[in-house]
């Protein structure tokens, strides 16, 4: 079951068979099912999938931030190796110990920089709060540290910005503040939940470059949650593709983009304009205007999942056997796994999409 993304180093985070259920009025929803992946020290693992595929629920489950009143059930293991080299299961830690890890060992950046800062406090106070909680500094020292963090994330006139409120900053600026806040206690793992989705393209590039620089300097690991494959190609070391709450394919980034094994991954890549163009050139097609490829159909309802492979109703390669049972996640080459019976039948799937 466990993807074979292992390396000789101890893993920073090793997630095993993580499942998250929500007990709703309509029934039990399996939002994350049997998800396993790992993150190497100093490396970036990207979790890719469309909206509702369970990416964010995975990250919230790992941080234990799902509210306890939602009748949420989380099972599995998340083995995290902290600075001191101890390995802890995040899903079984008592709450006070978990609080010491949040913001300290594991920090998080959210998608919406507009609302993830408290409007009634200055940005300096908000960064200082985390520092005071985890590093025990006094107010003045914490503010001085906050200033250094703002300078670290390249905010111009940081000394002035320190005393400004979130509404006085632009979106890109706020995301920098969020990164400063996340970096304040020098975390070993940064969970970035679509950190650039709300930003325009030039700012996106700056923020990603900043995160990459900070990773180089501090050696932290990053769990990068995104639906943007272009960003994945440039910034991730390993990729796990999620569909309907399950990992359907996991591989090192180059291998995944070079030869996607699962039909869903192939479909995702085929949706990229550049890929389409490449394909057309290769086939000698010269027709100018063509519609972009789209995966047909839509994600099945989590309340009524298909009996077999979750992707079967949308898959161009579906066989009768696909309707019967969910295929297992099986080895599909060095360091990679895929959840598709076509792959496990050892006949490498043709990369061409119909």
């Amino acid at each position: 079951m466990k993807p074979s993304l292992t390396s000789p180093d101890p893993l920073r985070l090793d997630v095993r068979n993580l499942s998250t259920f929500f007990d709703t009025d309509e029934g039990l929803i399996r939002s994350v099912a049997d998800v396993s992946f790992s993150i190497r020290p100093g490396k970036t693992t990207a979790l890719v999938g469309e909206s509702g595929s369970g990416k964010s629920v995975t990250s919230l489950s790992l941080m234990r931030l799902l509210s306890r009143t939602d009748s949420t059930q989380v099972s599995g293991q998340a083995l995290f190796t902290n600075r001191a080299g101890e390995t802890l299961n995040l899903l079984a830690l008592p709450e006070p110990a978990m609080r010491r890890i949040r913001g300290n060992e594991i920090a998080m950046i959210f998608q919406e920089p507009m609302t993830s800062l408290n409007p009634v406090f200055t940005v300096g106070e908000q960064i200082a709060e985390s520092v005071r909680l985890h590093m025990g500094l006094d107010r003045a020292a914490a503010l001085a540290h906050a200033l250094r963090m703002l300078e670290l994330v390249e905010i111009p006139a940081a000394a002035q910005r320190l005393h400004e409120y979130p509404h006085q900053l632009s979106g890109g600026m706020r995301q920098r503040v969020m990164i400063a806040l996340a970096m304040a206690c020098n975390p070993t793992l940064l969970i970035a939940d679509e950190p650039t989705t709300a930003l325009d393209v030039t700012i996106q590039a700056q923020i990603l470059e900043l995160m990459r620089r900070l990773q180089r300097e501090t050696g932290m690991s990053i769990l990068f949650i995104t639906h943007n494959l272009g960003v994945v190609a440039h910034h991730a070391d390993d990729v796990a593709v999620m569909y309907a709450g399950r990992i359907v394919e996991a591989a090192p980034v180059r291998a995944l983009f070079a030869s996607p094994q699962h039909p869903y991954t192939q479909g995702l890549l085929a949706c990229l304009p550049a890929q389409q163009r490449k394909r057309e050139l290769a086939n000698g097609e010269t027709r100018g205007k063509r519609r972009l490829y789209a995966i047909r159909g839509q994600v099945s309802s989590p309340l009524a999942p298909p009996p077999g492979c979750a992707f079967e109703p949308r898959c161009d390669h579906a066989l009768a056997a696909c309707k019967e049972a969910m295929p297992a996640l099986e080895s599909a080459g060095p360091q990679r796994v895929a959840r598709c019976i076509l792959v496990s039948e050892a006949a490498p799937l043709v990369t061409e999409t119909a």
Partner: protein
Amino acid sequence: MKIPLILKKLFRRRIVLGAAICLLVVVLVALLANVITGYDPNETAVSQRLSAPTASHLMGTDELGRDLFARIAFGGRYSLTIAALTAIGAIAFGTLFGLVAGFFRRLDAPIMRVVDAMMSFPDILLAIALVAILGPSMFNVVLALVLVYTPRVARVVRASTLVVRELLFVEAARAVGVSTARILWRHILPNLMSPILVQASFIFAYAILAEAALSFLGVGVPPEIPTWGTMVAGSQQYAHDALWVVLFPGFAIILTALSLQLLGDGVRDLLDPRLKKSM
């Protein structure tokens, strides 16, 4: 935003400025009662009973010859104190219950059903019943009014808490390891200050009226303590011959309550720009 700037924006509307000045005058008169009035509020002079306003008795005298201006000034101390304590108490308890009900879903229904039950009584009736049971004293009046207004605050605070608790910065605070108590106190409460402030000013005004009404009905402050309510209550039978005995205390009540309401409106408009009328 700096304090002077806030005041400048608040007072840009003349009527709000006027209300603030009126309120300031009322408070100053009450505070300086022993300096600006030449009479003991309880000193009777039967020879001068029901005297119309003159140079020596600015607002005239009541049925026992007590100086009305002195009584209104000293009575203001009691009336304003009762109203202020009521506002503080109702805000404190209402905020506590509202925060807890809004934040912890398990406690929401139990707390809010009690609140609903209390709000289903007409305000003044509930206060009358409470004082009738507890006995008339200043403390009991405050207690009864706090009980009456706490549910109102709790409901407003709960509604705002429900909105704020879902905002991403609360989750972000949790993600940096902030404890639940600290999230409530440091992250959610400051975001509720505008509705709380507006409620405070309205409750202050309601409490002035309610205390007057309770005293008028004889279930408020004991008659020997001069409040604006007891003054109207005690002198009402002479109103036909000497209008001033109820006119001036009544005027004090109206002026103070109206000023507070206008000030509350001004604060609300300042804090919630969506409700701002065109100026």
